[in-house]
């Protein structure tokens, strides 16, 4: 009874959370909480994997909780199993990391209780099989993560971030609620099975799609609903940031997939247009925002936005292919998206762990105050480098595999009958390529400025390597990135049942292809073999090294940097994050951010330094969020006068209400 075991894990997490409220300040509370989380996450991971590999059977369960006449329904099918695996893996890694990282926490009593509750909520979302339990878990997930975001509540920004986050989250939940209201109908058939049976189509389904896109999109961070994400994710403690960015956004993706691919009826072709356009904009804007940041964690958060865009591109393609009954192509696109879900959860967690380790060691999130950490934190630096290569979609690591699959799916688009899609999909492909290239640029910046060069501050100078738990967790995840990168076939095969379930077809079996390379469609068409690429590179690198060291010289001398003959001692002369991004800012920023550079040159004889001021505008915020906030405030101000009327005026309100109703009655027939 796999499902029952999972629910026990959830219960254990909840219990741990509630228990910790009492003992959060004790030193052993940390070990207790993170130990429990680690253990339960590992168990659920095993269960989920066994489901995916077909060892254990899918099952469902009904508990006498939640909505009385529906009960709390839970189900475990391949789809939820996969996302459960992602959640559990991320949680396990984060818990392991936190075992060590948690020492830096100055207010554990605000973090420890909420943490296991957060994990439990995420697992429940994936397991829920009726609208009520789903939304309950969904919103509970928002609530607990909110509590974690405002754990350091004395920092004003955190409170602001938490506020924006909670409001946006409730907004998303409410729109999902509306969607489920439509799906369930006036009768209130909230069970997923009942909804599936109802099989909504036409305008109703379209409305549901839009609502879900808003609801799940706002949680996942689709532009323009992403505004909360770069505020909230960095505000939380780093292992929580990793969970929020790496895992919670995936839970949102799960919500989208579950409703749109599973519960809704057959899609209409223009749905995919909607999704693709949003996704394309999202991935490019996300990475451009990221390039403009010099706060390491915020940069990572913006990259989450970008990767969500990539995932949704895959999902949009899957929708398009499914709408036209191109089953295999749909399976390819879906597999690409899901594989990227896994990959992103891996390397994003890894990168946040790295940033957390840096934060713990230096107390700095601002890259411009870091530098040269590769000398003092070699292990962290190496793990972080792996993450950077992976997220930049470079072979032979995992990020490349999923993007490669996405490109392969895009290359199938000419077979689509609709002209709109024929033209749109390659354009989206261009956006995807652009974002991939920009991501590489961004992570050259992130790694180069943070870990390479010379330390820019004393904090970076005296930094020391992080604790062994953190390192263990980072290397574990890095190893997984590598594994998925060189042996993608097995993972693609593991995703096959999901494709079967959702689009009714699967990719050809990959793990049996010779040399373990992956061939999504046909070998004459395209193939990729991460393992061989890796072997070749290592082989030729070693060969080169060997030959040169043997036949030529291997002498080496340390000397001051040459720098064209003008070596400058001060580390301030190094390129900073913003100066590194300057060329790209000049290319893209002037349009996207209305970026302006103003040079302030003091008059001759004035000793003040010249300053270069760069101003960037978040157009989306200015155009979308600011007006709403302003409107609410103005309306509140106007209405507030009603608090200060005299009794007589209140009476006249009553009086006029009475007269009005009487008039209505007099005219009513």
């Amino acid at each position, binding site marked *: 009874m796999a499902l029952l075991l999972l629910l026990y894990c959830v219960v254990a997490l909840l219990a741990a959370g509630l228990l910790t409220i009492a003992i959060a300040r004790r030193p052993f509370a940390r070990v207790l909480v993170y130990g429990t989380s680690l253990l339960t996450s590992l168990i659920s991971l095993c269960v989920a994997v066994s489901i995916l590999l077909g060892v254990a059977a899918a099952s469902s369960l009904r508990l006498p909780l939640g909505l009385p006449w529906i009960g709390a329904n839970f189900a475990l099918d391949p789809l939820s199993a996969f996302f459960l695996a992602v959640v559990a893996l991320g949680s396990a890694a984060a818990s392991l990391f936190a075992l060590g990282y948690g020492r830096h926490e100055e207010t554990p009593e605000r973090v420890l209780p909420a943490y296991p509750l957060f994990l439990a909520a995420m697992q429940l979302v994936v397991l829920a099989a009726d609208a009520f339990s789903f939304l309950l878990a969904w919103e509970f997930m928002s609530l607990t993560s909110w509590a974690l975001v405002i754990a350091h509540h004395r920092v004003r920004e955190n409170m602001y971030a938490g506020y924006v986050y909670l409001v946006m989250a409730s907004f998303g939940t409410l729109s999902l609620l509306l969607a489920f209201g439509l799906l369930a109908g006036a009768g209130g058939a909230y069970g997923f099975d009942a909804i599936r049976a109802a099989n909504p189509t036409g305008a109703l389904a379209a409305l549901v799609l839009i609502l879900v896109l808003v609801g799940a999109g706002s949680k996942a961070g689709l532009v323009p609903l992403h505004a909360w994400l770069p505020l909230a994710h960095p505000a939380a403690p780093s292992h929580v940031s990793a969970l929020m960015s790496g895992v919670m956004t995936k839970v949102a993706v799960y919500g989208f997939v579950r409703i749109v691919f599973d519960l809704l009826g057959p899609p209409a072709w223009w749905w995919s247009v909607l999704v693709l356009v949003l996704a394309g904009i999202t991935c490019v804007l996300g990475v451009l925002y990221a390039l403009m940041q010099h706060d390491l964690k915020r940069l990572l958060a913006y990259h989450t936005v970008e990767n969500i865009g990539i995932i949704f591109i895959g999902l949009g393609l899957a929708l398009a292919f499914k709408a036209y009954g191109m089953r295999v192509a749909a399976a390819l696109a879906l597999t690409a998206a899901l594989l990227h879900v896994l990959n992103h959860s891996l390397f994003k967690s890894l990168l946040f762990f790295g940033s957390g380790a840096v934060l713990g060691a230096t107390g700095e999130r601002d890259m411009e105050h870091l*530098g040269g950490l*590769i000398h003092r934190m*070699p292990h962290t630096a190496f793990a972080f480098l792996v993450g950077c290569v992976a997220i*930049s979609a470079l*072979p032979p690591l995992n990020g*490349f595999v999923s993007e*490669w699959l996405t*490109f*392969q799916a895009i290359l199938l688009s*000419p077979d689509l009958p609709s002209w709109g899609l*024929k033209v749109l999909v*390659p354009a989206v*492909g*261009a956006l995807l*390529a652009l974002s*991939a*290239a*920009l991501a*590489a*640029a961004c992570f*050259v910046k992130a790694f*180069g400025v943070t870990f*390479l*060069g010379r330390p820019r501050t004393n904090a970076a100078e005296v930094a020391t390597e992080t604790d062994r738990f953190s390192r263990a967790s980072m290397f574990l995840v890095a190893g997984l990135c590598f594994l998925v990168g060189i042996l993608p076939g097995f993972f693609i095969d593991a995703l096959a049942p999901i494709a079967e379930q959702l689009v009714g077809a699967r990719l050809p079996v990959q793990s049996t292809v010779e*040399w373990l390379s992956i061939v999504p469609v046909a070998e*004459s*068409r*395209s*193939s*990729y*073999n991460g393992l*061989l*690429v890796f072997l*070749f*590179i290592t*082989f*030729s*690198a070693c060969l*080169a*090294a060997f030959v*040169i060291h043997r036949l*030529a*010289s*291997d*002498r*080496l*001398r*340390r000397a001051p*940097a*040459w*720098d*064209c003959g003008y070596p*400058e001692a001060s580390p301030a*002369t*190094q*390129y900073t994050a913003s100066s590194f991004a*300057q*060329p*790209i800012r000049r*290319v893209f920023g002037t349009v996207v951010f209305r970026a302006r550079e103003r040079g302030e040159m003091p008059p001759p004889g004035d000793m003040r330094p010249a300053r270069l001021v760069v101003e960037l505008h978040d157009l989306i915020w200015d155009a979308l969020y600011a007006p709403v906030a302003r409107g609410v405030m103005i309306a509140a101000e106007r209405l507030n006068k009603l608090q200060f009327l005299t009794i007589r005026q209140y009476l006249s309100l009553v009086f006029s209400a009475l007269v009005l109703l009487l008039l209505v009655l007099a005219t009513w027939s």
Partner: protein
Amino acid sequence: MELAFNFAVQFAQMLLVLALAPLLTGFVRKVKARLLRRQGPPLLQPYRDLIRLMRKEVIVAESASWLFRVIPYLIFAATWVAAALVPTFRTGLLFSWTADLIAIIALLGSARFFLALAGLDVGTSFGGIGSSREVMIASLAEPAMLMIVFTLALIAGSTQLSTMAGFMVSPAVGLRVSLGLALIALIIVAIAENARIPVDNPATHLELTMVHEAMVLEYSGRHLALIDLTAELKLLLYISLIACLFAPWGIADKNAGALALATGVATYAGKLVVGGFLLALFETAIAKMRVFRVPEFLGAALMLGLLGTLLLFVSRSF
């Protein structure tokens, strides 16, 4: 037997590209010099440079990390593997399915990624300039390249270079607008990627407009030799890529005899000569442009690539 032969061919190609790369560079330099009425260095000069550099001892800045010393080997390996997978004189190489065109581009991308990191490693201002400009150029060149791939892949129905080359020689491929656009775009990208005039000037130092040379400023000795060799390999790769995609004539196919192979090698050499000559001609003909004109230059390539993809649906007919 069959396998062994294929293996031999694959290995032969690896050695061939490695061997030819410096020669091609030497040839281009020679031609350029001649076009400028100069004597110019001998054809084999690049080899001499490489050997001399290899013999020298390496001087590494104190602030450099282990990454700084690993990167040359990494980027060399990546580029070499990429170059080895591009069909030169024979399609259907043993390992050609290891990486299709997208993967090859990505391999070059990884090489660039690490080289840019190397530029930042020592922590000097010049390295920073080089890296930041390099990634800026790359951020436009890569999507352009991918759009070109889309165009070609949509025509050939594959991203496998062998298949594409096979398709290109076949009569099925008519004269298409998209192909022309793709070719122009590919040439632009190739110029940018190889840091040639007008995007960058491989022959200068200490010029604030330089990109590639600034990045590798701190390198010396065998590291520098490897980096130079990598650059030469990359040039060769792009020329043979263009040749394989747009002039695949004479290239031997999978089950070709010795004669076919010989002709293949010969035609390949011919193509290299032509390509090198055209490159030299082009470089002498125009002047280096300001760095911030480069985006427009590459943006044009991106537009061309996209246009090519879109026009496909129109030009399918003829």
